[in-house]
């Protein structure tokens, strides 16, 4: 196997919280990301799914070093980016990892012209300005299918889908190796969504990009991803090739997740599967397997020993006591 583009080991991110009890000084932590190992190969698209609040956004924020990690290492291009200085980060790493946020409106500075929005990375890293900058931005606009006269407009003059294109153009300006897409289409209508997904697919092929895609909409994940990672409460519970995960998930959580998706072929409410119980708190996660409080196939061992990730198949891993390797 060749060198992975990014390799994450034992990554943790804890957020401090104020305790809810009067005069109790004990410090508590939200364990948003709690020990994650991950390898991403160049050129693949990873779909990251899981219940809301399970730590997906936090994970990618740490990958981009928008938040500092609590523990663990992230090796990108042979460099541990949890340890390098902010300057090093700026000079060496930032231009290679970019992100497209969920909400295209809030991720664009409403008081900047599109030219400067897209041009900002170029002026920061390549010190482009004036005509050279405009030309480069025009070519980027062209690439994402926006007219050239968008240059001197403000973000609010565009529709949701167009704004998302601007955000993509901006992310691609420095020709990064890795692009993170955090819910890239969740706030736009179904027709624009189609176009954006299509564009992303094309750009990936054309520029040889690597994507990390986060989405609640499993059909979107299905559409783009090569590999899917399922998270539950700060941990990875299952990962494997997209088709495999969709068709033969092995972890009970993954199964439940996929069975709760309503589909057109269903006729009856009873066909939707539910998970009983409430989501446990990320401050005091359950012992043993984190899913055991809600797992339909829970065994005594589950509350005591934390299951290790096991290869079910080549490229298909899951962490559950039900599995025997």
């Amino acid at each position, binding site marked *: 196997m060749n060198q992975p583009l990014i390799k994450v080991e034992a990554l943790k991110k804890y957020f401090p919280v104020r305790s*809810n009890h009067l005069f109790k000084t004990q410090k508590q932590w939200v364990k948003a990301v709690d020990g994650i190992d991950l390898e991403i190969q160049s050129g693949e698209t990873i779909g990251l799914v899981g219940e809301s609040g399970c730590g997906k956004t936090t994970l990618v924020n740490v990958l981009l070093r928008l938040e500092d990690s609590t523990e663990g290492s992230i090796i990108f291009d042979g460099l541990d980016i949890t340890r390098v200085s902010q300057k090093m980060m700026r000079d060496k790493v930032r231009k290679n990892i970019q992100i497209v946020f969920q909400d295209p409106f809030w991720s664009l500075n409403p008081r900047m012209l599109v030219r400067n929005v897209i041009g900002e990375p170029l002026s920061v890293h390549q010190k482009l300005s004036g005509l050279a900058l405009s030309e480069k931005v025009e070519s980027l606009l062209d690439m994402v299918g926006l007219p050239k006269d968008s240059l001197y407009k403000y973000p609010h003059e565009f529709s949701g889908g167009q704004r998302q294109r601007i955000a993509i153009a901006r992310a691609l300006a420095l020709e990064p190796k890795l692009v993170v897409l955090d819910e890239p289409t969740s706030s736009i209508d179904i027709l624009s969504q189609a176009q954006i997904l299509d564009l992303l697919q094309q750009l990936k092929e054309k520029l040889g990009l690597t994507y990390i895609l986060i989405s609640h909409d499993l059909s979107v994940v299905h559409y783009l991803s090569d590999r899917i990672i399922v998270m539950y409460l700060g941990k990875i519970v299952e990962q494997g090739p997209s088709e495999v995960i969709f068709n033969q998930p092995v972890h009970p959580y993954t199964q439940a997740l996929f069975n709760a998706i309503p589909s057109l*072929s269903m006729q009856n409410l009873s066909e939707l599967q539910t998970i009983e119980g409430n989501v446990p708190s990320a401050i005091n996660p359950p012992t043993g397997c984190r899913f055991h409080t809600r797992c339909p196939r829970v065994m005594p061992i589950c509350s005591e020993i934390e299951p290790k990730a096991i290869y079910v198949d080549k490229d298909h891993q899951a962490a559950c006591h039900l599995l025997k390797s």
Partner: protein
Amino acid sequence: MTDQKTQFYFEIKDLSVGFRTFEGIKPVLNIEGLGINRGETYGLVGESGAGKTVLALTILGLLPKPAGMILNGSILFDGVDLLKQSEKQMAEIYRGKRLAMIFQDPMSTLNPVFTVWQQIERVITRQEGLKGKACLKRSLELLDMVKLPDTMNLIDKYPHELSGGQRQRIIIAIALSCGAEFLIADEPTRNLDVTIQAGILKLIDELQRDFKMSVLFIGNNVSLVNIFCRNAGILYRGKLVEEGLSNCVVQNPLHPYTQTLISAIPRSKSEKLKFSKTIIKPEAENGCPYFSRCTIGKENCSTHVPMLREFRTESSAESLNDIQNPVQKAACFYAGGTI
């Protein structure tokens, strides 16, 4: 069949609602007709901004005050035009008593400065005249009904101390507290996970059966509406573009918008999303709202607004055996032409 219009328990006729803006009055809702029978569930589907919430608020007479305007139409409920009721009548007779609503956003629907108990108590005291112990007992019953655990404890908590799912269920409990005859559920699961979503839908379904409620279910997920509702309507830019038995709409969409919508959705889990390329034409100001994206639209679509038309379709689904003549309506000049 022909007299059916008068039989509806709840009916909207020629409703049009607009918002005042700098550029003038911007219409956001224009519904020719929509009817719901007693004990029936009606699903309204539309993308974000289609006007679903505005419709719900209009029914309850709660449109945002200075901006929202009812331009025309009537909303008949049990033979009474709700739009003609005074604010006082709405508050005393209808809201909370006969009409109830579950709001879209559980985060902002609960008042942050009152405990769960304080919020439930006021409603129960007002609607059922219960006080003290009796009121508490009733509240606990309600919370049990929506399957909340540890109700004694929960009732003294503030909204921010609850999880999204718990909040949503409290809202449902309050909305259902007085056994309203008509429930509007405005995307009650929008901010929830698919797994929690399934649980909540099952709960509403159960309650509906127990109380014989009519439900207007609002959602943006066609599959969900298909599973949950008997009838379905498709809202596009404030206009009902298609209506019918939900199974029929899903299996035999007539309007081009519905067709694109449904064709994109995978039939089963293992299928991928499918997209047909969309073209964008200039908007037609006096024409069909879907004109700018329509692939089959012709000249007259840009100058005339199509009205809902009835289509008779052969029942293809076995589950529709009890209905002899399923009716489907669509607002398109060329509907049913292609499928």
